[in-house]
């Protein structure tokens, strides 16, 4: 397929013109405002979209291979390096997998701190995407820095929310990127109550900021574009999910984490360094904020639900462009949840429990900002990793992204080229794709 494309760029267009067919090739070689390196390619012949491709050329780093022969306790620090934007997600999925392998459930204040540090990561990662990466598309700027010239307060407020998320991570984790305090069984050192309580005022202010911003976001213009997705997310009995729950969908999937690979398979395609995932029985699916929101709406705080009703979103969203609204609502949720958790927190006597998995298989799946992140480890009798499997959210979303591109480009095929390319890029950015994660995982191109 790749070769065909390359020829198409050089010769194909001319040949096809002879047959009086109008072929257009749109390429964006280096997609901007995404984390990592990828390209987009759309081919349109006589006004019909013939091919779309999300190509990932981020060089592979072989984490699953280099984890072999490492001790179980090293997995959180090593896998954190898969992604600088969501290291907590990698640490949480790996420690839960190791604890599963050892047959241990960690409760109490350690569990609370894990939820809290995850709130920090959602706030930081979502704020980065909403304000710095996604919003410039809606307001027509190349970057948040350009946007700041006319919308200074908006960008400043966004950055202050982002900083708050980072500060939660730093207090608990030691630093914002690749935190050092997370370990299998808990934390190296538990924070003191006052260290966290000093965030309460800022959390209250950030809540007000987000309520205003959500009102602003709701008034943006959204393309009329809805699809019938299979949404997949964790579902927990009484919480909006971070670390625990069953994996469920709106089309009948309802499984335990350990059954993941029986229902979801990964495939390799020639044009991408990222593996594609699909549900065995049905095909593509969508993970991330919209999926979480649709499947767990009832678990949101009453105040978040009331704002979502006020802006007319309600409990269900199937327009991927509105993911910016859902992310903003999740930021609001995470801010409120962080306040609640901090007020409940009492410094535990022991910051961790002893966990020694041996001769066992461990499964972990947690809700990274971009969706479910699955880890599986086979551990030998000495606690060494024999085999590792990591399935990040962006690889799971790749098929849905390509399908969105196909349908979107078809519906808006008559837009001027420049506008269509921008909108197609935005279609990809809707997913906040993290390419560093998925490589084992953007450029854009349209051909007419």
């Amino acid at each position, binding site marked *: 397929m790749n070769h065909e494309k390359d020829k198409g760029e050089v010769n194909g267009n001319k040949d096809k013109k002879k047959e009086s067919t109008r072929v257009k090739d749109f390429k964006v070689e*280096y*997609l*901007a*405002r*995404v*984390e*990592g390196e990828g390209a987009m390619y759309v081919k349109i012949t006589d006004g019909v979209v013939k091919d779309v491709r999300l190509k990932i050329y981020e*060089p*592979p*780093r*072989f*984490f*699953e*291979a*280099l984890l072999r022969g*490492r*001790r179980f306790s*090293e997995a959180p*620090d*090593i896998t954190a*390096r*898969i*992604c*600088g*934007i969501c*290291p907590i997600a990698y640490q949480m999925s790996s420690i839960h997998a190791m604890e599963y392998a050892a047959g241990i459930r960690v409760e109490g204040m350690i569990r609370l701190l894990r939820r809290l540090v995850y709130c920090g990561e959602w706030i930081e990662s979502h704020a*980065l995407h909403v304000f*710095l*990466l996604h919003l410039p598309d809606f307001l027509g700027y*190349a*970057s*948040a*820095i*350009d946007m*700041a010239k006319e919308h*200074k307060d908006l*960008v*400043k407020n966004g*950055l*202050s929310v*982002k*900083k708050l998320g*980072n500060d939660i991570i730093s207090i608990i984790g*030691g*630093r*914002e*990127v*690749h935190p*050092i*305090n997370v370990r299998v069984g808990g934390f*190296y*050192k538990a924070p003191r109550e006052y260290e966290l309580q000093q965030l309460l005022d800022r959390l209250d202010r950030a809540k007000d900021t987000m309520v205003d911003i959500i009102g602003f976001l709701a008034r943006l213009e959204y393309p009329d574009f809805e699809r019938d997705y299979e949404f997949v997310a964790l579902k927990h009995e009484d919480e909006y999910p971070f670390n625990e729950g069953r994996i469920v969908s709106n089309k009948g999937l309802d499984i335990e984490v350990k059954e993941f690979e029986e229902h979801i398979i990964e495939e*390799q*395609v*020639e044009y991408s*360094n990222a*593996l594609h995932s699909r549900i065995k029985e049905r095909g593509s699916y969508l993970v991330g904020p919209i999926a979480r929101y649709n499947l767990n709406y009832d678990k949101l705080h009453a105040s978040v639900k009331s704002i979502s009703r006020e802006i007319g979103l309600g409990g269900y969203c199937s327009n991927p462009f509105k993911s910016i609204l859902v992310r903003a609502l999740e930021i609001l949720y995470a801010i409120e949840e962080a306040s609640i958790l901090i007020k409940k927190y009492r410094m535990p006597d022991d910051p961790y429990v002893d966990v020694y998995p041996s001769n066992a298989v461990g499964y972990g799946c947690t809700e990274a900002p971009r969706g479910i992140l699955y880890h599986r480890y086979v551990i030998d009798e000495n606690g060494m990793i024999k085999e590792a499997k990591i399935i990040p959210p962006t690889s799971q979303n790749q098929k849905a992204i390509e399908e969105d591109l196909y349908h979107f480009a078809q519906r808006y095929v008559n837009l001027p080229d420049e506008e269509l390319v921008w909108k197609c890029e935005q279609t990809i950015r809707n997913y906040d794709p*993290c390419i*560093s994660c998925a490589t*084992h995982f953007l450029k854009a191109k349209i051909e007419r």
Partner: protein
Amino acid sequence: MSISKNRRRRRRYKLAVWKFASCDGCQLSMLDLEDELLMLADSIEIAYFLEASKSVVRGPYDISLVEGSITTDKDVDRIRKVRRVSRYLVSIGACATAGGIQALKNFRDNKEFLSIVYAKPEYIDTLDTSKPISEYVRVDFELRGCPVNKHQLLEVISSFLNNKRPNIRSHSVCMECKRLNNVCIMVAEGVPCMGPVTHAGCNAICPSYRRGCYSCFGPSESANVASLVKRYRDMLDEESIVRLFRTFNAYAEPFREVK
């Protein structure tokens, strides 16, 4: 840090940020400068920074920050092009300065690595090694860390813009611990710590959180690795000692000798 000094210049300096094999964490550190970002953008032109902006200003660039290691033939060509269009080239982070965690493959068989992750290895274009930027082009400054410290990153940018040497200390983490009045966790609690051979810059966060340093910042200047290994032998078996050195800076000069 006198970023504002540049405002008086007639021409704003052009900054570019390039990514090779990496996790994005080091360039993210720039966006994590929440309080300074807009001020920074006022005083320099962010001319190429794909993670943050669609618009691309043509080179040459006054300063290029390079994140990530070199792992493919294409990237060898790309880094040479980056060098040609950059007045100063600064490599940032453990991947760019030492090859990163992915340099563990330098110690193993690449074919085996490929087939573990990919069912069809023939689709994947990759070199047998992951190497630092300095193996391929001249580098004007290396900023260490996995990830880099964002305040040090700001110091480096503003120093180059003001034609001064960045004030980045190359002594060990031990010095940072002493300054913080931390009790030595290796002496007091017998926890293996890499602080004695590790480059400063993180402000000794691991010992401050009661865990041993695991050397995100790589070797310090004139690190006495052999002596530390000898001390470790009282606490750890040989395999565990090697594993300590085989992480994010495994391919850095004195660390890679530990076998």
